[in-house]
C-alpha cells in the first residue's frame, strides 16, 4: 500500500468535505433561524399596528405608525392584570410545593435503599406515559365534590400532580451526581440525616433545584386544557386560558391577540435571560444519568 500518496489524497478530500459540511451546516441553521424569527417578528409587528393598519394592503412588515393601543386596550377590555395575577399565584404555589416535595424525594431515592424503591422509580417514569387527559374527568368530579370548580386552587393541585414525577426524576439525577462521601463526612460529625441534607447537600444542589423549579414553572404557565375545563369565570382565568379564549370571540382582533401573546411571554423571557445556563445543565443531569 502506498501510504504517502493515499494520505495526500485523503487530506484534500477531507478539506473539501469539511467545506461542504460547513456550507450545509450554515444553510440549515439560517433556514431554521428564518423560520423562527419571522413568526416572532410578525407577532411583534402585528401587536404594534392599529386595527386598520392590520387590514392594509400591501401588508406592512414594519408598521409605519406603531402604536401601543393594543397593549392598553387589552387591559381595559379584559381583566388581563387579573389573569397575570392568577397565573402567578397558581404557578408559583404549584412550583413551590412540587419542588419542595420532589427535592426531598429525589434525595431519598438517590441516597437510601428501601423496599419499593425500584417500583417507585418505575412508577415515576410511567406517569409520563399516562395521558394527562385521563385525569381530567376524575379530577372534574373530585373538584366538584370539594367545591373547587371555578377555583384556582383546583389548578394548583392539578399542576402539582403533573410536575412532581418529572421534578423528582430530575432531582434524583442531580443528587446522584453529588458524591456520597460528603453525606458520610457530615454524619460522622454527628449530624442527623435531615441536618446533613439541609445544611450540607442542599446548598450544593442549588443549581439543580433552580433548574427543576424552572421546569415546573414553565409547565404550569403553559397549561391550557385543565384551566379551560375547570375555570369559567373571567376573573379566575390564567393568562394562558385568557389569551387562548380571545380566539373564540365573535371577532378576532389579531393586534390585541398578539399583544396578549407578548404579555404571556414576559416570564419566559425573564427565565431565558437570567436562567439560561441552568436549563441545559439541569436537563443533562436529570434526563441523562441512569
Amino acid at each position, binding site marked *: 500500500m502506498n501510504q504517502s500518496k493515499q494520505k495526500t489524497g485523503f487530506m484534500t478530500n477531507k478539506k473539501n468535505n469539511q467545506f461542504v459540511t460547513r456550507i450545509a451546516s450554515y444553510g440549515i441553521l439560517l433556514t431554521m433561524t428564518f423560520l423562527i424569527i419571522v413568526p416572532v417578528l410578525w407577532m411583534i409587528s402585528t401587536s404594534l399596528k392599529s386595527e386598520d393598519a392590520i387590514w392594509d394592503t400591501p401588508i406592512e412588515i414594519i408598521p409605519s405608525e406603531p402604536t401601543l393601543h393594543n397593549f392598553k386596550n387589552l387591559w381595559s377590555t379584559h381583566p388581563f392584570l387579573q389573569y397575570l395575577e392568577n397565573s402567578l399565584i397558581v404557578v408559583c404555589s404549584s412550583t413551590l410545593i412540587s419542588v419542595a416535595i420532589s427535592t426531598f424525594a429525589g434525595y431519598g431515592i438517590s441516597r437510601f435503599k428501601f423496599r419499593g424503591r425500584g417500583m417507585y422509580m418505575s412508577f415515576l417514569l410511567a406517569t409520563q406515559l399516562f395521558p394527562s387527559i385521563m385525569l381530567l*374527568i376524575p379530577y372534574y368530579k373530585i373538584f366538584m365534590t370539594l367545591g373547587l370548580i371555578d377555583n384556582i386552587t383546583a389548578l394548583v393541585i392539578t399542576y402539582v400532580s403533573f410536575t412532581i414525577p418529572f421534578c423528582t426524576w430530575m432531582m434524583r439525577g442531580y443528587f446522584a451526581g453529588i458524591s456520597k462521601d460528603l453525606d458520610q463526612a457530615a454524619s460522622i460529625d454527628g449530624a442527623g440525616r435531615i441536618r446533613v441534607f439541609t445544611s450540607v447537600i442542599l446548598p450544593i444542589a442549588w443549581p439543580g433545584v433552580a433548574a427543576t423549579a424552572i421546569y415546573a414553572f414553565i409547565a404550569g404557565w403553559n397549561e391550557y386544557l385543565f384551566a379551560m375545563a375547570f375555570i369559567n369565570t373571567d376573573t379566575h382565568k390564567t393568562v394562558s386560558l385568557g389569551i387562548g379564549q380571545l*380566539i373564540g370571540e365573535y371577532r378576532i382582533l389579531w393586534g390585541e391577540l398578539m399583544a396578549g401573546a407578548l404579555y404571556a*411571554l414576559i416570564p419566559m423571557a425573564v427565565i431565558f435571560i437570567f436562567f439560561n445556563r441552568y436549563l441545559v445543565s439541569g436537563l443533562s443531569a436529570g434526563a441523562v444519568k441512569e
Partner: protein
Amino acid sequence: MRSAFAKRESRSGYIFAGPAALFMFALVVYPMAYGIFISTQKTNLIDEWEFVGAKYYLQLISDSEFFSTLGTTGLFAALVVAGNMIIGLLLAVIVNQKIPLANFFKVILMLPWLFPETVVGLIWKWIFSPLFGLLNHALMSFNLIETETDILGRENTAFAGVVFVCIWKGYPIVMLMMMAGMKNIPQERYEAASIDGANKWQQFRHITIPGLRPIILVAVILETAWWFKHFTIIWLMTGGGPAGRTEVVSIEIYLQAFTNFNFGRAAAESVIILLILLVASFIYSRVLRDESE
C-alpha cells in the same frame, strides 16, 4: 449491626420519599382508579350513576369513527415525533461542531421551546389566516398561488399545517436532550476516528448514534407519549376540523365529556389511550434494545 444500619437506611428513605409517594397516590393513583370506575358507569357525575360494565369499551371497539380518530392521532404523533427527532438530532450535531456563532444559533433555536403552546397556536393561526395572513401574502407575491387559500380550513392542508406547527414547537426539547447526551460521549473517540480517516457521516453513524442510544430511547418514548395526547395547539388552530381531519383523541375526549356530557365514554376512551401508550413504549424499548445488541 448490619441490619440495624439497613433498618435506619430504609427508615430515612421513607421519611424523604414518603411525602412525594403520598401525593402521587392521592393525585395520580386514586384519580386513575376512579377514572377506570367512571368508565364503567353511565353518569352525569352528579346524581346519575348506573353501572353499565364494559358497554363503552364494546361500543368503542366497534366504532369506526373512534378508530379513524385513533388513526389520525397515530399519524399525527408519528409525524411530529419523527420530525422532532430528525430535526432535533440534526441541529444538535450541527451546533455541537466548533463553528463560529454556534452559541448564537443555540439560543435562537431554543426559542420555540419557551413559547407557551397557546402563543404558538395563535401566532401560526394568524400567519396561516386566509385574510391578510403572512403566508398567503408571501405565496401570492411570489405568484405561487393566485387566490387566498384557507390552509387550516381545507381538508387536504389542515393536517399538514398542524403537524408543521407542532414540529416547530417540539424539536427544541429533543435538541436539548441530544446536546446533553453528546456531552457524555468522550471526545477522544472522535479524534481517534478522524485519525483513522473516518468522515463526518461515518463518525455520526458509528460514534454519535451509538453513544446517544439510551437518550434516544428515552426521548422517543417521552415524545410519543407527549404528542399522542396533545391538545392545545390543535384545539386553538382548528378545533379538530375541518370535517374531523385534525380531530385527535384528546379533542374527542374533551368534546365527549364537556360538550356531550358523556363522561363514561370519555373515561373509557382515556383508558384505551393509556393501554396504547403502554404497549407502544414496551415495543419501543424492545426494538431499540435489540438493535443495540
